[in-house]
């Protein structure tokens, strides 16, 4: 699918660009962090180091929603903090309920990458056919499909996403973790958490960018000579769309998809900061939790933000490299 000319252009740009190399190294590190989180982590991401009278961890491990601890004080229930400073036991300290920040940042990488990659995948699968059909057929079909897309564009991604999740709730799915199942990481959670609703919602609010780019490509490709030739020998519209229009519009779609992974990771972190993600194992959620403890424990909010920043920088660097190699003119909300 990738032509030799393209491959050599990618290689040439990569060799000449320090930034492209940096982006690739960072991206590989973050993917490894996410995949091997249970092995690299020093603590169970839910473990608070606190125990109830029966010796069980308190509060119960997992994705509980009230992540503040309360104790009977002089004036009724008071919020208490079990924060521990960064040390040899806790590399990056603990959060307000005593959970290890280093381990939680590792597991948080999974949430960001899962939502970013699967969300972008779904958005591509919906948006590209939609845009290709709209641009290829033109006329009334194009008009009505594009008006529907305009309705989506009338709402900022974040606003529509918040409304959808606020209404339908944030469901999560548990995926068995092969590394833990195979016994390589004793005492780690057996399941990885996929915030399913959030993944669907970010795809739903971002597919329209793929539709716009695909439509623009289809409009310019449909008048090319080879498409006319194919039509003249009796090729069906479906054949022309899948065999000619789609392959020739892939370049800008790939670049857009790269940038959209970064945009969706940012969107997911915003949603979880606002408490709409359904899992507490998320960088954005960790930042929200740390905001109340800035004066006493700066690391809770600071560290996960650096993780988001590095993840998004690395993807943007890869996107720049692809764009410089392939040079299409595209944009989209959240990434230019």
């Amino acid at each position, binding site marked *: 699918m990738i032509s030799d000319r393209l491959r050599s252009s990618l290689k040439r740009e990569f060799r000449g660009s320090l930034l492209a190399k940096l982006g690739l190294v960072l991206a590989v590190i973050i993917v490894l962090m996410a995949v091997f989180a249970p092995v690299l982590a020093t603590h169970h991401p839910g473990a608070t180091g606190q125990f109830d009278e029966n010796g069980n961890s308190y509060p119960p491990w997992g994705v509980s929603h009230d992540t503040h601890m309360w104790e009977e004080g002089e004036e009724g229930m008071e919020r208490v903090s079990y924060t521990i400073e960064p040390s040899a036991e806790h590399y990056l300290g603990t959060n307000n309920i005593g959970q290890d920040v280093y381990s939680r940042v590792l597991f948080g990488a999974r949430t960001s990458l899962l939502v970013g990659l699967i969300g972008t995948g779904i958005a591509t699968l919906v948006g590209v056919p939609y845009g290709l059909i709209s641009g290829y057929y033109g006329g009334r079909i194009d008009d009505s499909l594009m008006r529907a897309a305009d309705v989506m564009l009338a*709402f900022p991604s974040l606003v529509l996403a918040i409304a959808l999740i606020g209404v339908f709730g944030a469901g999560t799915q548990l995926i068995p973790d092969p590394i833990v199942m195979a016994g390589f990481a004793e005492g780690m959670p057996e399941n990885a958490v996929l915030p399913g609703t959030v993944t669907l919602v970010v795809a739903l609010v971002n597919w329209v960018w793929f539709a716009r780019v695909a439509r623009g490509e289809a409009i310019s490709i449909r008048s090319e000579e080879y498409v006319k030739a194919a039509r003249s020998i009796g090729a069906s519209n479906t054949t022309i769309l899948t065999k000619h229009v789609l392959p020739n519009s892939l370049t800008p779609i790939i670049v857009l998809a790269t940038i959209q992974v970064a945009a969706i990771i940012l969107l997911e*972190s915003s949603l979880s900061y606002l408490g709409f993600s359904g899992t507490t194992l998320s960088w954005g959620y960790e930042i929200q939790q740390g*905001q109340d403890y800035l004066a006493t424990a700066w690391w809770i*909010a600071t560290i996960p933000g650096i993780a988001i920043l590095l993840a998004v*920088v690395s993807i*943007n660097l890869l996107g720049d490299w692809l764009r410089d190699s392939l040079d299409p003119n595209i944009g989209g909300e959240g990434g230019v």
Partner: protein
Amino acid sequence: MAFGKFLTKRLLQGAIVIWGVVTVTFGLRAASPGDPVNLIVDPATSPEIREQIREDLGLNEPIYVQYIEYLRDLLVGDFGYSYQSSRDVAALVIERIPATLELALAATVVAIVIAIPLGVISGTRRNEPADYGATLFSLVGISTPNFWLGIMLILVLAVQFGIFPTGQRPVALHDALWTFATTLHAGELLTWVRHITLPAIALGTYFTALITRLTRSGMVDELGKPYVTATEAKGLPEVLIRYKHVLRNTMIPIVTVLGLQLGTLIGGAVITETVFAWPGLGLRLINSIYALDWPLIQGILIFIGVGFVLINIVVDSLYAYLNPRVIEE
């Protein structure tokens, strides 16, 4: 004449999209699980009163009747009453608009004031330290989550050094300006500036980075064109060439992209307002969703959606007016 036709077509399209926006907001409520009556009264309320509320809200009608009544109410400007505060939704929306506008404008001003000179310097001194610095800044700027940047600003400038307050908006800009105009006391105005500085930086950094990038690449493209050589040959001062001729031609793509990024600005304002407890429309939206206050959610969504559509029509029309070739397409 062609422009009149263009405007008519664009307005018709806009009307269809606004109808779509309104339908989406209706659909969201209709699809949401849960009984709205529980959001208005205590679950222990007697069945008779609950039934009365259902009747008053029209919830016993078939869905298409509810939809038609919803459209009819909106057409006469009736947005309903908030479940929580029982106040008129239109008033609840309107009273929050100035705060959000102040924030969006302040962020845009921060972005333009920093980004344009930075982009020009970066584009005219390629591969010099200033260019590397600007490029690095814009890369980090477009990759930083604005809510985290806001929290870091609070951590350093508010909590550690106490230079700026951590948030809130004790005085409105128009009130501060009025005080200044009538009494010449700048105290309120300074308070306003102190409070909006951190939120404006948090929201504006992404756009600063974006405009720096666009200005730089635009300058690089334009500087290679023959007219630049011609003006240089005429002996015009370099500053004049850069800022008057080259920058002007660079502005067209910048304005176009900024129009497309309006959604990011509004979305960013929602979350920035949350970080800084800035009492704008975004903060109200978040709180209304936490409370599932449907009439208020719908009112804010319609306001944002319709505002977006109208601004786009104005931008497109300006663009077509200045650049008649657009109409041909």
